[in-house]
């Protein structure tokens, strides 16, 4: 495989290898917490933080960890950072955000995007590249969360970042319920695959 430049390592997660829209990983938080843009941003920030730190540590210990027990080791590292992030969020973020994110912050431990990057990237590449990869993939995930949550918040609540769009618009409350999440994610996936197909790429 061709060696990517550091800048490419950072930006590949945005569109080309987007963890949510292309790899279709991390659907659980993408469906559950994307009711408002604020929630999506908070979730994305937490994932960036955890992914960057865990990628650094896993890259540092990649030569010491025996191959047979690598997954439990990764989980311990990730869980440590998730706990740190969770306590930080409880301390500094407004209580409403913590309440609406709820169980999904601790569940970052089993987020498949972080496991995926640890397994295919951080355990094979240098510390610097792994850190950049973690940030880039986390930002790609955040971009995806913000897109989904912006559509859902605008259609389902009639607001963007809490500001009403129009007085006359009657929000379709189904969009902030579970079916709305599946509809939006499904349509976005269809849109990305449609673009790929029309450029003649393989889906």
């Amino acid at each position: 495989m061709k060696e990517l430049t550091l800048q490419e390592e950072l930006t590949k997660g945005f569109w080309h290898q987007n963890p949510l829209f292309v790899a279709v990983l991390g659907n659980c938080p993408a469906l559950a917490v994307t009711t408002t843009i604020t929630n999506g941003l908070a979730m994305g920030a937490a994932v960036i933080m955890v992914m960057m730190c865990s990628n650094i540590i896993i890259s540092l210990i990649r030569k010491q960890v025996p191959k047979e027990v690598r997954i439990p080791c990764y989980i311990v590292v990730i869980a440590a950072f998730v706990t740190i992030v969770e306590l930080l969020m409880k301390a500094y973020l407004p209580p409403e955000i913590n309440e609406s994110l709820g169980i999904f912050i601790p569940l970052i431990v089993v987020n498949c995007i972080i496991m995926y990057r640890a397994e295919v990237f951080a355990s094979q590449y240098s510390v610097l590249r792994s850190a950049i990869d973690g940030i880039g993939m986390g930002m790609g995930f955040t971009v995806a969360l913000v897109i989904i949550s912006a559509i859902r918040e605008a259609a389902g609540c009639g607001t963007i970042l809490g500001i009403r769009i129009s007085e006359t618009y009657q929000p379709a409350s189904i969009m902030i319920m579970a079916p709305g999440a599946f509809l939006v994610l499904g349509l976005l996936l269809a849109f990305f695959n449609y673009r790929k197909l029309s450029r003649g790429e393989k889906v």
Partner: protein
Amino acid sequence: MANERGLIVSTSPHIRGPEDIPRVMWTVAGTLVPAGLVGVYVFGYYCLFVILLCVASAVATEALCQRLRGQPITVNDGSAVITGILLAYVLPPSVPWYIPVVGAAFAIAIVKHTFGGLGNNIWNPALAARAFLQVAYPASINSDWRSLKEAGILYNITGVDAVTRATPLFKEAGMETYSYANLLFGNVPGCVGETSVIALLLGGLYLIYRGYVDWRVPVSYIGTVFVLAMVLPAKIEAPWANDPVYHILAGGLMLGAFFMATDMVTSPLTKKGLLIFGIGCGVLTTLIRFYAAYPEGVCYSILLMNTATPLIDRYTQPKLLGAGKAKK
């Protein structure tokens, strides 16, 4: 034009015979006209606007989807027109203009084309859109209804403030009931095209006469509701609770039984399957009317039985001659 249409190869598993899709579809659309005329007469000219808006949005969405999917555009075959008409008939007469547009787009784009277009959809598009709208805009679909007395063909009902209930089947005690004559003609509250039993029967019977609709579905559906309404202990406090005639005349049962449950795409293929389908719809409708929170159960019962259609087809598939188990 007819030759040109004949050349289009599109999936059509639901017609086997000399008839083609456009002819069947336009006949069905024609048989829906009387019910719509009564709706416009009873609820006012705004209903005509709702119907036209639904049809226009459905046709436009169909053309857009087929264009995006790189298929030939077959909006002339009338199937999108029927979806639009049926959707309008299950909407309240005074819905704001964007609800028909959103509903028709959902029906065609999501319910029909994401599953493969005409002939491949699992659910009846109009009913699925109605269920979607009921969750999306509960205020407009469930409660924002205008009083019948203030309506009439020359009134614009959107300007009237009086609010009434959605259907003669409303469960709360103390509500007015309606005479059989009014229910037959359609002079009762309800959705745009579901109120007039006579107009719907005219269209439905003609479809059965032409063979486009199998009699088994409406007969088993309405028959099941009739019997169950008589024998089941009703948990609702209304004078008509155990009046089977009222149950089959009021609400959306006639429209559902003749035009929606009989949808060729979403109902079973075998004769036995059609009977099972109709009975299932009838059981679910009565159960929802008697024991659930919603006053009317036709929409959800048909959608649920649509979901079960592949299963029914599988279990009622006739054995091939000579391919059964060998006798020992």
